[in-house]
């Protein structure tokens, strides 16, 4: 509140300090800017602390060899004992141990393959659909969108058993009629058995995102591209998609991360939690949680190791994709 100090004394005599300060803020642009700045930094700091604290906690857990005996209180002058976790010991060995037990690199590789393939498929299909829904007028449009959306209403478990059956190589029957259609190949333990359901399940979200963003690109730009010699699809990939970069990048990041974190399907489709069976990273981490439920430090260390690749993606790719491409966004 030092902002008030430089306002002239005479005029402010009758006002209290707060009033004086508000007065200053209302009337003085500089002060207002400073207030915005301050508010902004407070908000940013708040968000940072709240999002990062759980990670700090994870780190504390990983470094503390015996979590059970730990004392999470720190004493702070005046306040006395305050519950705040700090590492009790410094056992970096947990991280080494994690690697000794589980072939993390293989799990990570699997996750990347699955996530990348799914993301590509989803973006491609969702772009087509987003273009259709966002930029074309045709009968049945609203209804089809609702139908696609309805797919995401169902708990994943609703899809699981028939898909699992089919992916096991069992014959596919027409529902209610018991007429055998065909016998699909056995897909369990292959990437296909995961990529296909992931694509279908994450598709609605991306379709809706892209529909929204594609519909906002001015017609003139598509027109220009078409006159210049592209097909409508060409215009979609050359003009509309790049111009919707923030939306496309968001859809991509959301899909990628969702697949990376998916476990419901992959835990079933990869019959065992083995990297050879395309079990993803979450499976690897989970094998810690489920097998050794009280080795908190190992669990935490495994989690941190599992999160690191994502962290790198988020820091590097996210920035590259979102702001790299936003240069092209509709800023004038």
């Amino acid at each position, binding site marked *: 509140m030092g902002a008030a100090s430089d306002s002239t004394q005479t005029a402010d005599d009758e006002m209290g300090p707060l009033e004086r300060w508000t007065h200053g803020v209302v009337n003085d642009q500089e002060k207002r800017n400073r207030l915005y700045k301050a508010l902004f930094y407070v908000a940013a700091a708040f968000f940072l602390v709240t999002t990062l604290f759980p990670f700090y906690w994870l780190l504390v857990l990983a470094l503390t060899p015996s979590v059970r005996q730990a004392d999470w209180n720190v004493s702070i002058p005046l306040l006395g004992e305050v519950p705040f976790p700090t590492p009790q010991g410094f056992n970096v060995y947990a991280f080494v141990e994690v690697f000794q037990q589980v072939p993390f690199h293989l799990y990570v590789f699997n996750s990347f393959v699955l996530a990348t393939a799914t993301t590509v498929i989803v973006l491609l299909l969702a772009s087509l659909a987003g273009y259709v829904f966002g930029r074309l007028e045709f009968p049945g449009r609203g209804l089809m969108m609702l139908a696609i959306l309805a797919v995401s209403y169902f708990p994943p478990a609703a899809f699981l058993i028939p898909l699992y059956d089919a992916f096991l190589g069992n014959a596919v029957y027409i529902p209610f009629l018991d007429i055998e259609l065909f016998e699909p190949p056995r897909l369990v333990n292959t990437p296909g058995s995961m990529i296909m359901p992931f694509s279908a399940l994450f598709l609605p979200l991306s379709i809706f995102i892209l529909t929204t963003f594609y519909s906002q690109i001015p017609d003139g730009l598509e*027109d*220009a591209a078409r*006159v210049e010699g592209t097909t409508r699809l060409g215009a979609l990939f050359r003009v509309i998609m790049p*111009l919707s970069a923030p939306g496309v990048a968001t859809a991509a990041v959301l899909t990628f991360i969702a697949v990376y974190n998916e476990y419901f399907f992959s835990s079933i489709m990869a019959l065992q939690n083995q990297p050879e069976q395309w079990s993803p990273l979450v499976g690897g981490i989970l094998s810690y949680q489920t097998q050794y439920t009280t080795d908190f430090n190992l669990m935490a260390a495994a989690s941190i190791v599992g999160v690191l690749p994502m962290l790198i993606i988020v820091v590097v790719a996210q920035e590259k994709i979102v702001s790299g491409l936003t240069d092209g966004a509709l800023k004038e």
Partner: protein
Amino acid sequence: MARVHLDDVTKRYEDIVAVDEMNLEIRDGEFVCLVGPSGCGKSTTMETIAGLTKPTEGTVTIGETDVTNLPPKDRGVSMVFQNIALFPHMNVYENISFGLRLRKFDTDEIDRRVEQASDVVQLEGMLDREPSELSGGQQQRVAIARAIVRKPDVFLMDEPLANLDAKLRVHMRTELQRLHKQLDTTIIYVTHDQAEAMTMSDRIAVINAGELQQIDPPLVCYNEPKNRFVAGFIGSPSMNFVEGNLTDDGLTTDHFDLEFDSDGLEPIDDDVTMGIRPEDISLEREADSATSTSETIEARTDVLEPMGDEIFIYLSLDGASSEMMTSNEASTASNQLLMSVDPDTEVGEDESVSVVLDRSKVHLFETASGEAITHGIADLSDATPTASVAPEAESGGQHE
């Protein structure tokens, strides 16, 4: 290098008819300007030709092909858009070369052509700027370059020079004309600039409310407008119109009469509107004796507007200087005339003057339909003019 033919094209948006049964035949290699008031359907017509908009009815033919259902890319057209529509995610070079890259020209050829085109529009050295770093005029020039770089059969240009300064506009006009000659392309051009339409086009198509009014060479449109709309629209400042009655002896208006033999004319009724362009009115004292001048008309000068190369004089026929008179409005009021004179003419505001009309430039239109009855009454008159004027009639004349 291709004829463009619109056959009964109609384009309807929900409740608005943007283009109304348009029949337009543009010859191979022709340069046609579309002009008309804002919102009359020019851009829609262009979009129909480009294939960006499907006509509600009618067919579009380019060359010998019915292209009504062909996508834009297969029509061999290129277009400069009214709203410019640069791709914000590409720099100038990429914008200009977009169409060439789509067609997989090799890099050298692309470079050569882009350089050439950017020379034409004077954008050298700006090739790697982003559109957001360009001024309005520069953006428009990029749009032009993007269209011309491809050398298509048909150019569609929707107000391509609107954002350019006079000098550059003149330059661009020249370049476009040169291009037209060199490439022998058909050019369809929308403009609001009369000078542009007059100097560049082989023919001008005047459109109003979605309907084609006239398509003719510029001077024909100027001198022999088919109807009052065209007469008023072409020419700046606009033609003066005075309503009157046709008698056997000529025309009677509230403020003056013109004598001529109206036998040969066949209007639907006697209500006619006379039209005269500002430059066809002259001060009696300066009148060129060679031209067939009309009866003298007494008037008062109202506002003088010096333009540098000429002066616009607003004449009040009933002597009353209308309150809150603003210059450009004058020609629309029936008791007022706008004339243009040489810049060194000595005349002051609020003076009494006698003016004469050039009888060969007097146009007559049916008041009801607006259709032209005759252009020039010089040949109709049986004798030299005799003064039979009714100067300074009371007020009246507020017919609308």
